């Protein structure tokens, strides 16, 4: 038991070393700086759009800002998830990591957790800026704002882990990014896919059923839609969390399986 505990502790230490190193790497990237500046400008632009909306200023400012925030975070997370591990393969920096007593799955876990942390950093940073702007315009704290950000982060964590998995199996970064964008887009049409499953039969139905299970349902994370449609009371609090764990665990397991067999 003590041996197991010591092994776990050593394992987690390695995960944390990789996590810290990776998060620092992502935040030091020039594209990150450009994206943060661009997202701040965009949120500021939403303020100007909001002013033009007159009586809907609060709604426009909040919705427009949140939309832009998600888009910016998505772009950077997809990009970083697609290159973070493959770039280490290409530059051969992985040699000096894996020739040390570093289990491949500990390295992978550290990298994935740092991508999730990166998504949280972006959302917290941009979210704080938006709240300052709202305060500046004299508006109150938007209802369920922190919940919206939390669910947005969960969505980003899922697509990030899928992109990491895709980066192991696809032939290029562009292919990984394109497939991830497609999955992200299709994932927002899960209710429509469900509707088509009910309306079709035979091969078409099998096809839609398959796509419903193979493409993540991002719609369950769009709290803003539930709030606007007055269905907020119908939300199952645990479903998004369980769904997140299931997707992350599945993609991590598949990635770790491929990584274990990979040679350098």
């Amino acid at each position, binding site marked *: 038991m003590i041996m197991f505990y010591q092994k776990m502790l*050593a394992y987690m230490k390695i995960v944390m*070393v*990789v996590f810290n190193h990776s998060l620092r790497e992502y935040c030091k990237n020039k594209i990150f700086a450009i994206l943060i500046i661009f997202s701040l400008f965009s949120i500021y632009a939403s303020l100007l759009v909001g002013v033009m909306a007159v009586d809907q200023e609060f709604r426009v400012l909040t919705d427009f800002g949140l939309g832009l925030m998600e888009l910016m975070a998505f772009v950077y997370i997809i990009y970083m998830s697609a290159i973070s591990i493959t770039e280490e393969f290409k530059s051969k920096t992985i*040699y000096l990591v894996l*020739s040390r007593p570093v289990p491949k799955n500990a390295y992978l876990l550290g990298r994935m957790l740092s991508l999730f942390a990166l998504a949280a950093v972006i959302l917290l940073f941009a979210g704080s800026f938006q709240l300052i702007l709202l305060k500046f315009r004299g508006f109150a704290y938007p209802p369920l704002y922190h919940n919206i950000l939390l669910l947005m982060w969960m969505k980003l964590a899922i697509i990030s882990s899928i992109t990491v998995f895709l980066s192991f199996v696809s032939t290029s970064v562009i292919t990984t990014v394109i497939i991830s964008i497609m999955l992200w887009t299709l994932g927002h049409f899960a209710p429509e896919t469900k509707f088509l499953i009910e309306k079709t039969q035979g091969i078409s139905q099998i096809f839609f059923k398959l796509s419903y299970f193979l493409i993540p349902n991002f719609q369950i994370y769009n709290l803003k839609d539930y709030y606007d449609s007055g269905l907020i009371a119908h939300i199952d609090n645990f479903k998004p969390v369980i769904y997140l764990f299931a997707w992350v665990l599945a993609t991590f397991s598949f990635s770790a399986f491929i990584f274990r067999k990979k040679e*350098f």
Partner: protein
Amino acid sequence: MKNEIIAEFSNISKIYKIKQFCSSRRNIALKNFNFDIKRGEIVGLLGLNGAGKTTVMKLLAGLIFPSSGEILIGGINPIFSGAKQKIGFLPELPYFYPYMTCIEILTYYAKLSGFKEYKGKINKVIDKVGLTWHTSKKISEYSKGMMQRLGLAQAVLHEPELLILDEPVSGLDPLAVHDVRNLIAGINKEGTTVFLSSHSISELEKICHRVIILSLGGIVKTVECDAWKTAGGLEKIFINSIKGGEEVRKR
């Protein structure tokens, strides 16, 4: 102690499968490769380009897996952490994160190695490899020679039992070659076993106790230090072995 085996290759074969459109091609890199490294010695691996030197190094570092046979480092397969704790590896042309300084890089690698007393050791190692005046520079500003020195620093930092160096003097200027050679000899005197590959005969001749001549994925000769001293140099033995080995293989 001197005869204690620290690493052994038993009947190792390595076949690379090169994927092509709708098919794959097999490239035999090593075939029935057998040899041992004894504790405390400096063993050189000599061969022409494409002889399989880097494959041997990567197999020992656990970066690739043998197609058949068994490799053991201190009785443990190199894919396991127990074996990796015993080795220090310098790949041919080491690559580092360009945005970091050498202290940051060495700290990162020391932590990954699980080496606890790294704080005092980092400055000593930096001093040893001659990078004391370059600690504030980022790696992107380093020359090839400085990268090689840093490569050596990261390989010896955690005090490994076996140092694996793939072409450690490749592309270096004569002064850097001299420094690296002295450094390797010094590390060996401290008790570390060194296994290095090169296609520079003169370099191996100067520091090795034993040299393994490799050709087309197989050992053609193992030469002890005394043998090349009495035979008038390693070059003569190498050329005869390579030519003889190739003829045998052709036949």
